[in-house]
């Protein structure tokens, strides 16, 4: 490889790139860095397997520079490729190390691998075109058109695809999961909230007051009335035990009345 000649060649390539700017302005038109490299490599007009990777690297960096000049946001993988190419190019320019360790790939190997990948991608693109250029059914060639004619289906064997099988399975599992009844968990009126509320109301509880009036009414989206009543009662009973509150109920299922015990309440407030 005559590396000494690389620099003048690069200058030439830069000029030629400027000539057909339209080709390289639109980064959106490319499918990743390898695609860009392939387009640039084609411009070298040599067998892709024999391409000058050093020159290609320079062209690629040029391409990115132009993209940036046009303030096109360059995706990270383009930059990773750029870094790799710079690294590869510098390794290619360095004299080969005297002792060759066979364990690690040489820069020449890496360059060859890149050239191979470009050639392979190009081959696949051409293959796709060749397939399209062939006789495509219902575009270039046509089979019997009459749908009402007596027909024979080619075979009685089952024709199934794994994809269908998977889809059938997933469909059912989805339906099954939708079928599972999951009632929304009831929102409970928290005990500590109830306690805080009753404590705050203590000064106002000089007379017997009905529990149903002390408990909050319950609200949409919040705890319902039953939970409010239950939690308020539980909190009240705690306060009764602490001696801050009195409670009484005249008979079973009758309304429960609460009254603050002023003395202790005073001490608590102090």
């Amino acid at each position, binding site marked *: 490889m005559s590396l000494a000649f690389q620099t003048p060649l690069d200058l030439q390539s830069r000029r030629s790139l400027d000539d057909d700017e339209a080709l390289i302005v639109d980064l959106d038109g490319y499918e990743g860095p390898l695609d860009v490299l392939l387009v640039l490599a084609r411009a070298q007009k040599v067998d892709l397997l024999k391409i000058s990777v050093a020159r290609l690297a320079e062209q690629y960096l040029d391409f990115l520079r132009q993209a940036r000049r046009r303030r096109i946001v360059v995706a990270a993988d383009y930059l990773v490729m750029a870094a790799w190419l710079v690294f590869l190019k510098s390794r290619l320019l360095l004299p080969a190390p005297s002792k060759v360790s066979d364990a690690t790939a040489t820069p020449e190997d890496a360059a060859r691998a890149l050239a191979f990948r470009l050639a392979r991608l190009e081959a696949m693109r051409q293959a796709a075109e060749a397939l399209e250029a062939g006789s495509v059914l219902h575009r270039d060639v046509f089979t019997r058109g009459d749908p009402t004619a007596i027909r024979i289906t080619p075979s009685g064997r089952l024709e199934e695809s794994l994809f*269908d099988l998977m889809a059938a399975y997933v469909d059912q599992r989805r339906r099954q999961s939708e079928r599972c009844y999951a009632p929304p968990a009831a929102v409970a009126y928290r005990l500590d909230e109830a306690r805080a509320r009753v404590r705050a109301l203590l000064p106002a509880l000089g007379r017997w007051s009905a529990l149903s009036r002390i408990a909050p009414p319950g609200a949409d989206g919040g705890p319902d009335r039953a939970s409010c009543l239950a939690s308020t009662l539980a909190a009240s009973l705690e306060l009764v035990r602490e001696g801050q509150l009195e409670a009484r109920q005249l008979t079973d299922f009758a309304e429960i009345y609460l009254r603050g015990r002023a003395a202790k309440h005073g001490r608590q407030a102090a």
Partner: protein
Amino acid sequence: MTAVERMIEALLFAAAGPLSAAELAERLPAGSDVAAGLAALKARYAGRGVELACVADRWRLQTAEDLAYLMTVERQEPRRLTRAAKETLAIVAYHQPVTRAEIDLVRGVQANRGTLDTLLEMGLVRMRGRRRSPGRPVTFAVTDAFLELYGLASMTDLPGLAEMKAAGLLGLDIGAEFSFDLPGGAEAAEDPLEECETVEFNVDFLAEPVTA
């Protein structure tokens, strides 16, 4: 064979129905002699397996009448599994060995009893053993014919969860809780079928009430 004859032949072959001479002329290059082309084509096809016929002033290619027996006898519908069958088959494949009750659990409906029997008859599913659980229900598994049908080398080749996700079949809505046991993986204890059982596989409905 003249160029016009070729064109008429191709047009009649690909047409969805019979074409009149006027319709043919419209689609052929200007100045084509349609009548001569049709006459030549008719002569060419005389006595062949396919013939050129004129019905109500329209032309069409059709199979020779004397060969009709070949057509009618061999008329066949393409065989595809019904949706229910495919669904049941998928459950057996992904959960084998599996009992009827378990299949119903996944399918949600009391699975059409016939579906599993059809699969058994087609040789895609087989009875495998009896679960060591109350009622000792019969378990089912897929057969080698199943593997052949789907071109799988072995059950471990069955596409799994990751592939379902990759294929876009599993969205984010079915996430963490969606999972299944690996076919052939965790095996619930079960006994092999006794010989006589394999013959009369309808007997297993006796086991149903227990597992239901």
